[in-house]
């Protein structure tokens, strides 16, 4: 594998649409639940151990070669908010475009044909890692990190939060992120033999509810 390929895929400037999504932070800021670096950290911590742990496991499983259609269904069942399902497919489609231009691969082509309007983003991410010659750990790390870096960047824009503080939040979460990524790979390996039920399904109630509140706003800065 190429370690540099991981940097390309994990780069926040990788053109796959993530910049327009706040990962629920815009709704939480508006509701007054994120007001500073400390509340951003708790928000990110909650997201890391729920939605991001789930997407990391899906991505790792896709990178291991678990059937992507089954993983896409597992992602659907683990995403009760229809607004979040729409966002995940939108981002999946955008990532698919970037991935096929960057690391052309028949498995990506097959998934694009199976889901012309987009598969869940972590499933595409896992296959992208595979196409780039990366492994399940890499896919899990990318997904888990995106799960917290997106909200942190968004809050810098939404609250005018000091960008050094926001980056320090991400650095403080790093040890937990290591554990989440490792657990995700373990779960993905179990899914190879036991099926997708072995993947984590931990949810964060206010992320789901907040996504629906956000989707109903007539005016907003971020797509989700």
């Amino acid at each position, binding site marked *: 594998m190429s370690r540099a390929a991981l940097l390309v895929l994990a780069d926040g*400037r990788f*053109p*796959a*649409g*993530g*910049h*327009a*999504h*706040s990962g629920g932070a815009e709704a939480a800021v508006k509701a007054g639940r994120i007001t500073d670096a400390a509340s951003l950290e708790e928000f990110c911590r909650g997201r890391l151990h729920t939605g991001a742990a789930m997407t990391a496991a899906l991505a790792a499983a896709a990178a291991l070669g678990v059937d992507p259609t089954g993983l896409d269904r597992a992602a659907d069942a683990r995403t009760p908010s229809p607004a979040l399902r729409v966002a995940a497919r*939108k981002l999946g*489609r*955008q*990532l698919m*475009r*970037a991935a*096929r*231009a960057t*690391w*052309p*691969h*028949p498995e*990506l*082509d*097959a998934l*694009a*044909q199976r889901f*012309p309007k987009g598969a869940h983003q972590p499933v595409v991410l896992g296959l992208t890692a*595979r*196409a780039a*010659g990366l492994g399940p750990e890499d896919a899990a790390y990318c997904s888990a990190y995106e799960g917290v870096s997106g909200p942190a960047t*968004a809050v810098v*824009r*939404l609250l005018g939060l000091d960008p050094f503080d926001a980056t320090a939040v991400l650095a403080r979460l790093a040890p937990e992120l290591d554990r989440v990524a490792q657990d995700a790979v373990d779960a993905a390996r179990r899914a190879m033999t036991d099926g997708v039920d072995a993947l984590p399904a931990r949810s964060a109630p206010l992320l789901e509810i907040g996504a629906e509140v956000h989707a109903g706003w*007539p*005016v*907003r*800065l*971020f*797509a989700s």
Partner: protein
Amino acid sequence: MHLDHSHHGPSAVSADAHRPDGTRRALRIGLGGPVGSGKTATVAALCRALREELSLAVVTNDIYTREDAEFLLREAVLPPERISAVETGACPHTAIRDDISANLEAVEDLEDEVGPLDLILVESGGDNLTATFSKGLVDAQIFVIDVAGGDDIPRKGGPGVSTADLLVVNKTDLAPYVGSDLARMAADAKAQRGELPVVLQSLRSEEGVRDVADWVRARLAAWTA
């Protein structure tokens, strides 16, 4: 894993001039420029001028999502299914230049859903003078500035002013009131842009958007030739 093979299925190359079914895709023209210079008004006027002769659609990239799309809907310049709003996460220049993936989905969805289309106008949210469109997203771009924003903007230059395929100096009717020197703006623009065209327009005048519409027609004729 094999990385060296040809790929099939829907196009993965954004600037490809053909759609997956082999037909030629619509010409895409971007409109950028500072806040309040009249981009949305120019888009609305272009839609009115061209909608009888062309099949067209609009993608907006707002700062606050849907504001410009709502304006176009209220003005009823096109049926609602021909107007699509892309959410930009507070950064229109990112969505039109650095990460064009959402805009590409939007233009392709419009072609799928209301096509065949001759022309898609992609409007940026108001941004700064350095904001230009990626060549992976549009085939040509129009940069719209106005006389009220200061008559030194053409002289200052910047990628939008100096490299856009068409520079529009808008609101010429206001020049006497804001003390802008139109002749100087035109001369400065010429100095920055060389042979690239400049249009001075007032949407309040009888000619309105005529010159810009003619320029669009010429681009389209070249595209389909």
